[in-house]
């Protein structure tokens, strides 16, 4: 009887020990992020002001701002989303719902899994060869958006497949039972139910793309841009313009990279402030992803 008690006590102790080890392991990640944010905030906070957001880069650190960088980031993300989302969702639906199970599909699946692990700089080299030199798109918003779009395409495809796979087969069978075609089933049931998961994947993909600088430096993104791309809406006929797509650009990570390599310590503060802005943008996007997932989960009633 006494043996049993000590045995139980020992196991409970081991249990507690593992909980503590697990908590410590978790804290490593949390504290690193927290330390990073606090460090950036302490350095950069003093530079955060309205004029920092609405000034162009300058040789005077206290006058320099991130206007062209954050506008560039948003435009590039827009192009990235408009290319990666339709392509990724379509590919995901095809692979899950339509593709026959054969060696060809297997090869595609292996390739997509591999693509997700390819270092981002490789995408940059590919983009330099294809978009910049072959298609003559130049170092433009379009090139950057397409490059990052390709980068997150595997992530979007994977997320789409995961989300679609989570839908019970009985839903599809019910649709077929009342005579729906495959596309009708996908359109009216599979897609709406999996949209929460897909959107989460898309936003997580985008929040990876937003911090990328390696592929953009490879395509030759420029560092000093003190103007904005042409506005997409215009006052004269035909009232909209796609010229911004071919405009030179800069993005937040590149602006940071530039400031960090400057001799003056005041520029390093600007880099910290820009880093803080980027971090807040990424965290906001992840927050939106969580909220979207919650909204869609709430809507599904099976």
């Amino acid at each position: 009887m006494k043996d049993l008690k000590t045995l139980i006590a020992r196991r409970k102790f081991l249990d507690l020990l593992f909980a503590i080890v697990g908590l410590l392991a978790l804290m490593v990640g949390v504290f690193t992020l927290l330390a990073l944010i606090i460090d950036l905030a302490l350095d950069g906070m003093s530079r955060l002001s309205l004029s920092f957001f609405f000034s162009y880069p300058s040789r005077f650190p206290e006058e320099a701002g991130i206007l062209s960088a954050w506008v560039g980031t948003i435009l590039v993300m827009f192009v990235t989303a408009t290319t990666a989302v339709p392509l990724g969702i379509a590919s995901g639906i095809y692979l899950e719902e339509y593709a026959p199970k054969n060696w060809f599909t297997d090869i595609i699946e292996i390739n997509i899994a591999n693509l997700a692990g390819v270092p981002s700089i490789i995408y940059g080299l590919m983009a330099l060869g294809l978009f910049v030199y072959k298609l003559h798109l130049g170092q433009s918003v379009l090139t950057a958006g397409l490059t990052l779009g390709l980068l997150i395409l595997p992530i979007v495809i994977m997320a789409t497949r995961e989300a679609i796979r989570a839908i019970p087969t009985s839903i599809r069978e019910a649709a077929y039972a009342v005579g729906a075609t495959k596309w009708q089933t996908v359109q009216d049931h599979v897609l709406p139910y999996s949209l929460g998961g897909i959107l989460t994947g898309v936003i997580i993909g985008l929040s990876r793309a937003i911090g990328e600088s390696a592929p953009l430096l490879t395509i030759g993104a420029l560092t000093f841009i003190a103007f904005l791309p042409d506005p997409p809406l215009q006052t004269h006929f035909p009232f909209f313009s796609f010229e911004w797509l071919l405009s030179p650009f800069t993005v937040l990570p590149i602006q940071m990279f530039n400031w960090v390599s400057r001799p003056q310590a005041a520029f390093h503060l600007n880099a910290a402030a820009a880093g803080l802005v980027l971090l807040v943008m990424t965290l906001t996007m992840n927050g939106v992803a969580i909220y979207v997932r919650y909204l869609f989960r709430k809507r599904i009633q099976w």
Partner: protein
Amino acid sequence: MKTKMMSKILTLTLGLVSLSLSTTTIWAGPVIKIDGSSTVYPITEAMAEEFQKSKGGAVKVTVGISGTGGGFKKFCRGETDISDASRPILKKEMEDCYLQGIKYIELPIAYDALTVMVNPQNSWVTSMTMAELKRIWAPESQGQVLKWNQVRPEWPTEPLKLYGPGSDSGTFDYFTEAAVGKAKASRGDYTASEDDNVLVQGIANDKGALGYFGFAYYIENKDKLKAVAIDGGKGPVLPSPQTVENGAYQPLSRPIFIYVSTQAINKPEVKEFVEFYLKNAPTLVPQVKYVPLPPAAYAADLGRFQNKKVGTAFSGVEAVGLKVEEILKREPKL
């Protein structure tokens, strides 16, 4: 049915791409494209900033940092209008430009002083001769010269730790040419970084450190670093705007350049920008901690530019210790 959907998506994507491609032909407002050396970048950036302000945003100027070599690659492919260079154009690059039919005007625009630095706690070094620098940096010294007393016997047996720019940099090319006698000839066992701030941190935290980089990084970090006076044969001289301008700080002060493509000069905005550059250099160059050329040199530059004197005065080889007046007196050749 399945393929139909995919082909629709494909057509749509291709359509979007071609639509945006067709807009290439109509470009709103002129753009001046500049790329090249990170050493020249702060000067060109200041010029671009002021020029855009003066034009009220009617002309756009972009400045990139690809390094002197990377900049010339783009320049000789006709991708940029102006190339920033911290050394003269080399033979290989001249050939590339020739093959593409790119002609250029070479304009020295400022001086940079390569500064040799040690840790502030280093009490024994105040000056060094070029021969001692050669002894430290020559390829043969790799793994051999590891202590300060091997450089000069009266110095302590403190370990000697070296810091310098990576081999892609124009600063590296010039320093090796000046100190060792052959461009790119250097020992390899030193901490190399393209980011000069890494070198600043390294030297500032290491008592036995010695390193070299551009004057602008030294002047911004004066409290963390100690500059070494260089004896080029006429006694030790510390780098400063005065000693660079009067030619006393030799051979480690060097002119830096911009190269303007003759195709680009036909664009009025590029011509205007280069003239703006030369006119404002005496005021803007010191602001970004570089040493301006004498006024006569800018006047000579302007003459060279307006008379479209194409080519280089260096015939593709690095030259050390030249005064800008001598460079401008030479007839440039393609």
